[in-house]
Structures are given as C-alpha cells and as structure tokens.
C-alpha cells in the first residue's frame, strides 16, 4: 500500500484512541490555555448584568441528560450569576428528563448562596407540550403551573405572588439542546415581547446566529466554549473552563487528521493522473 493510501485509511480505532488521549491528558494535566471571550457571550453577560437585585428571571432547562456535559456548566454559571446578585429565579423544564437535572443544579446553587426555596427561587417542574407552555405563560404563570414540582400551589408560593405573565419577568434564559431557544424567541419574544437570551449546544448555536444578528436573541452562549467564556466573565471558573484545554487539543488533533487525509487524497489523485497518462 502506498503511503498516501495509508494516510487515507487510518484505522478508526487509532483515531478514537488518539482523540481519547487528546481529551484525557489535558483534563488530568491542565495546560491553562487562555479563553478569549466572544461578542455573543459578552452580550449574554451584559443582559444578565443589567438586571437589578430583586428582578425575576425565567430559567428554562430545555435539555436532558444527553447534552448535560455542554449545558450544565452554562446553567450553573447562570444560577451563580443570578443568585450572587440577588436575582430571583423561576425555573421550569420543557423536557421530562430535565427534571432531575434542574432540581440538582438549583439545589446546589441555592445552598452555595444561602437562597431559600419559594422566596428566592422556585422550580415549577415539567409541563407537557412545550409550545402550549410557552404561549400560556404569556397569559398566566399560575394557570399554566397551578402547582410547583413538589405539588405546592403556586398561589401560595411567595416568589410567585409578583409573577403573573412575561411582563413580570425581566429576562427569559433558555438553556437548550434543541431548537427550543428559537421557539422562546418566537413565542415569548415575538408574541409577548419578552427578552430572551439563550445557552445552546454547539450544534444548535449555529442556528441562533440569525436571531442574534436580528436582535431577537440579544446574547447567547455557544457550546462548552460559550460556557467557559461566561464563567470567565463572572469570575466563577467551573466545568466549562476546565474542559477548554481538552477541547483545544482535540480540535488540533482533528485538524491534523483532516490535513493528513487531504494530503493523502492529493497525492493519490496525482498518482492516478500519472497512471492514466
């Protein structure tokens, strides 16, 4: 087999092992690569920083366990930023599988900042039919969620006394592993005029740019990098920043594999051209 053929047919297990090592080693031995903050993240931060103590945000956990590696760091950072500035949080999830994730992150962040359930934050839980939920919240939060996740009437929960519609919500924050951030912009933003910002998986982030450019989502976090950038801005290093060394090394490796494959392809084409002459 010619060298260029070998370059184009590297055993996939070698590639998997290389990527595994490229991710594992920087996690065990951090390299401390700098994190540059993008304008999208700065805009997200500005929207959060513009909130005043006592304001209420709606934090929607629009994801499940499959993408929590990317989105948990964002949700944690948003909660820390909000609680550290005495911003109240009304949390929901639009995914049945998001319930456990949201509960754990809310409880941990609240314990860290000494926040009280029902006064500083509330978890309304999962409501079937996300589109109906988004629309109905524009008419009445309490009618949409008559009870919280634990069965307590929302009419009796102190934080809910001042929350009736989106008008009482300073900011909607959607942490999403699907297109739901777009739907928050369409339903809550387009129909009810709520301000929506989002944290998205890397795959989803590319689809948020048109909304960002149009000002419909005035700030967003894209993938683990977005989470790391936001952690840097709020000075709360977490899972995002810790993962960025591995991310950079793995990307460099992927780039190397792409170059090797393309060089091999170039030489094989040249060899084929020579043979045909």
């Amino acid at each position, binding site marked *: 087999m010619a060298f260029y053929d070998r370059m184009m047919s590297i055993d996939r297990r070698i590639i998997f092992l290389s990527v595994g090592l490229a991710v594992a080693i920087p996690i065990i031995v951090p390299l401390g690569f700098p994190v540059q903050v993008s304008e999208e993240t700065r805009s997200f931060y500005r929207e959060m920083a513009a909130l005043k103590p006592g304001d209420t945000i709606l934090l929607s956990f629009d994801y499940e366990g499959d993408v929590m590696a990317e989105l948990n760091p964002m949700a944690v950072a948003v909660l820390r930023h909000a609680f550290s500035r005495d911003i109240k949080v009304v949390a929901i999830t639009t995914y049945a599988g998001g319930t456990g994730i949201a509960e754990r992150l809310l409880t941990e962040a609240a314990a860290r900042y000494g926040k009280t359930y029902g006064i500083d934050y509330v978890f309304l839980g999962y409501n*079937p039919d996300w589109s109906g939920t988004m629309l109905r919240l524009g008419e009445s939060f309490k009618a949409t969620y008559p009870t919280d996740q634990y069965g307590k009437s929302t009419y009796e929960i102190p934080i809910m006394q001042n929350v009736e519609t989106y008008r009482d919500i300073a900011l909607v924050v959607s942490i999403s592993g699907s297109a739901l951030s777009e739907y928050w912009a*369409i339903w809550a933003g387009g129909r009810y005029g709520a301000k929506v910002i989002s944290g998205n998986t890397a795959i989803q982030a*590319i689809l948020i740019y048109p909304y960002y450019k149009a000002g419909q989502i005035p700030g967003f976090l894209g*993938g683990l990098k977005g989470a790391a950038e936001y952690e840097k801005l709020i000075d709360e290093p977490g899972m995002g920043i810790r993962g960025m060394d591995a991310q950079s090394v793995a990307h460099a490796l992927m780039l190397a594999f792409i170059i090797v494959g393309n060089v091999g392809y170039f030489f094989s084409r040249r060899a084929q051209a020579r043979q045909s002459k």
Partner: protein
Amino acid sequence: MEVTHDAGIWVAGILTLAIFSFLYKDNPFYKFAEHLLVGVSAGYYLVQYFFSAAYKKLWVPVVQQGNPILIVGGILGILMFTRLFRKTEWISRYPVAFYIAAWAGYVIPSYIQVRILQQAQATMFNPRGMGLGEIVSASVLMVGVATTLIYFYFSAEHKGPLKTISKVGITFLMIGFGATFGYNVMGRISLLIGRFQFLFTDWLGIVH
C-alpha cells in the same frame, strides 16, 4: 486519588466504560448497557408523562377541581390510541386534524413575523452613522442572503449572470456548512469531555 464509595457513581462509571467499549467493536457489555438504557428510559418517561400529563393536567383539574371542559381534551387524547387498531384507525384523524389546525393557527402568524419579516429586516441597513467594519459586515450579510436565495431560485436556468451569482451563493452555503461542521466537532468533543470529567473527578477522584 480518592475513588468514590458511592454505588450509584460506580454503576454509572462501569456503564460508561461498557458504552465506550463499542468503539473497539460490538460486544455483550455494550449490548447490556444499551438495552438497560432503553429499558430504564422507557420506564422513566412513562411515569413522567403519565404523572405530568394524565394526572396533573387531566385527573386533578377534572376530578379534584371540577373543571369539566378538559374532558374534551382528554377524549381527543384517548382517540389517538385508536391508531393501534386497523378498524378504528380512522377515528384518530379527528384529534390529529384538531391538533394540526390549532398548531397552524398558532404558528403561521408568529413564524412570518419572527422568522421572515424581522430577519429580512435585519439584513437591511442604513450606512449613515455606521463604522467601516459594520458596513462591511452588514454588506457581506446582505450579499450572502441575496445570493443564497438566488441559488435556490429554480424557475430559470442557472446560466450567465445567474450562474455567477448562484456560485457566490453556494460559496456562502459552503462556509455555513463548514461552520456547522466545526460546531459539530466541538459539540461531540464536549460530550466526551463531560464523560471523562465524570470518570476522572466523580468516580476515580484523579482530578479535583
């Protein structure tokens, strides 16, 4: 190194390795972990959906709070199950028709407003008061949108100026696909990072 004594984390760690073993080749450990995931997920979602929809949204309001109008929705929901039998399958078209009609009514005005009008508006700009960088950026955006739309214009043969313009459009599309691929790689690597962080931090205690 402080290996955890939490049995749940041990189970999660071993199952993670079982799933990773597929990268070498298919094997019984992978199959076991895969089937376990499917079974546990099915059970979890069945309980979640029953509790949050059938119980909280139908049983409680109708039986405990005396709100009979929701019975209509409940009946429509039950009619969906007629799809399971060939003879009664046709009945399920009624709840489906109801759902599609309501959905279209909700969606169409908002979509046109948010996804077409506002986004088309965002591609237009007034250069007065804008910096050079902003003008270049806005121009690129406008040219990209226009040429890409022309690429998808199939009512005339793409030759002459139309061919040149549509080639520019496809160049923008390729750049978009490249960016999507880059983000895809980042997303997949992030998931791997998440699992490794779990293995090294929560399970094996190598990293703190």
